[in-house]
């Protein structure tokens, strides 16, 4: 069982990890401790590996900072399910191998709920229902399987969609 951490729309990268807490500014190796440090301080203290973020529209808007999704990977986040994702965040999360799903039913999920994410079956199961997820395309699955796009690239010396 995973806990749902519910967020609204337009969660920007300054909320996920403020620029002042960048590894560049602090030399801190443990990025996870800064996840939502100002926007939601209890997150980093209480989040457990496999937990899920469920959010509204345009999750991750703003900066190109890969350390935002990296902080979420560092705490072992299981997946992010949002109505939509901002472009660079989506790409960074994909590159890091963090599962992301777009879904239009996220308003029905409550903060603190227990949920089970079935990645293979492409569904989220909660006490009050089962919600379908769109299965990711092969390109995305390939990166997830390899761990990250950098792992893939080092191994095959090319991108997953290159002939």
């Amino acid at each position, binding site marked *: 069982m995973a806990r749902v951490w519910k967020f609204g729309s*337009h969660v*920007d990268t*300054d*909320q996920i990890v*403020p*620029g*002042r807490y*960048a*590894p*560049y*500014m*602090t*030399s801190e190796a443990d990025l996870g401790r800064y996840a939502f440090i*100002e*926007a939601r301080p209890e997150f980093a203290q209480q989040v457990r590996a496999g937990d899920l973020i469920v959010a509204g*529209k*345009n999750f991750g*808007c*703003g*900066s*190109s*900072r*890969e*350390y935002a999704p990296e902080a979420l990977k560092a705490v072992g986040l299981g997946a992010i399910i949002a109505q*939509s994702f*901002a*472009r*660079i965040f989506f*790409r*960074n999360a994909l*590159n*890091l191998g963090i599962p992301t799903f777009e879904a239009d039913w996220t308003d029905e999920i409550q903060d603190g709920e227990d949920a089970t994410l079935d990645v293979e079956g492409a569904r989220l199961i909660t006490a009050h229902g089962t919600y379908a997820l769109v299965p990711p395309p092969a*390109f995305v699955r390939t990166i997830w399987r390899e761990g*990250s*796009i*950098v*792992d893939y*690239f*080092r191994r095959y*010396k*090319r*991108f*997953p*969609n*290159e002939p």
Partner: protein
Amino acid sequence: MPHTLAEKILSHAAGRSVHAGELVVAPVDMAMAVDSIAPSIISILRHKLEARVRDPERVAVFIDHVAPAANVATADAQVAVRRFAAEEGISRLYDVGRGVCHQVMIEERLIQPGQIVLGSDSHSTSYGAIGAFGTGMGASDIAMAWASGYTWLRVPETIRIRARGRFRPGVGAKDLALHVARAIGSDGARYAAVEYAGLDELPLADRQTLACMTTEVGAKVGLIPPSGEVGRLFHAPDWLEEEWDSGQADLEVDLDQLVPLVAVPPAVDSVVEASALADVRVDVVFLGTCTNGRLKDLQTAARLLEGRRIARGVRMIVVPASSQVLAQAVSDGTLAKLLSSGATIGTPGCGPCIGRHMGVLGAGEVCVSTGNRNFRGRMGSPEARIYLASPAVAAATALAGHIADPRPLLAQEEPAHG
């Protein structure tokens, strides 16, 4: 099927005809990194990819985000970045004071229309100002581009914005960008290419403002066809000049109808007329950034500030976008006007826009910034408030001590008619 401008550039890069939705692997003409992200890129390149820079001529590195260094962590990181550049034979390292990456890339003519340009900074859409496919990416993507010379891209759909008419006095490119944000929303161009039309007369500086701000509506790239001043300053290849599918406009804007606008925190698309915010008192006015820190922006502010004094209790911080902008502002008298009015000046670079140095905001403070983001905590305390506006609104605000429409000041300057 005809190509949009974005499809045309990606088709040329990929060596085959591609359309929106397809994935391509394309050679990268230039991949730049900034000081705040370069240490991560270097770490991925060396320790995870176990690779070196494949072509140092296609790499540029900028120390602009925290320049000069604000603490030991940033100083140490900058030492490592300089050492890396030397080891890899990267000659294009632009150090403290040279300026904001997006301005210097264009000043130094490191890129040309039709090229594929990646940046480790989200505002790399700025290169669309000269008709280059500029887009922001994270550390992993830049590291792979440095190692291989290639990147993968999904060909974006295009959102077309067509302008007609001319800006009225006191109104400019930033107002147009804020109008667009209000019209389509901060995610209105998510994953898409924004393509502007009808702006052939627009100077380069204003194109940079517009292209930069397309990031704030979620765009992957913000393209302005390389006409007018850009056509004279840069070399557009023949294939780029050929007709493309400029299609139906998704948004039409009558420039004559635009008025000075302000984005109310914490969202770029929460936009109202400057004149409606006269009850908002401000502590700090920040004039600078990749969005609005160019000579034209400083001149616009100086024209309003000349012979006047900034209101008591307001700090006005001016950070020229580059050393070239600073030198020009010195030689044409712009800087003297700004300083005489009570403004102060910071080292060319990103300045306080990212809340790390040179003017971090405290709880309860209110800032009018010519930058691009007003997220909570962007410039410091999450309890500070950031209003985004043009250089003209910023200057009028500095004089009034509250958010102000610059047009009444301009009207005072007009010669009396007999």
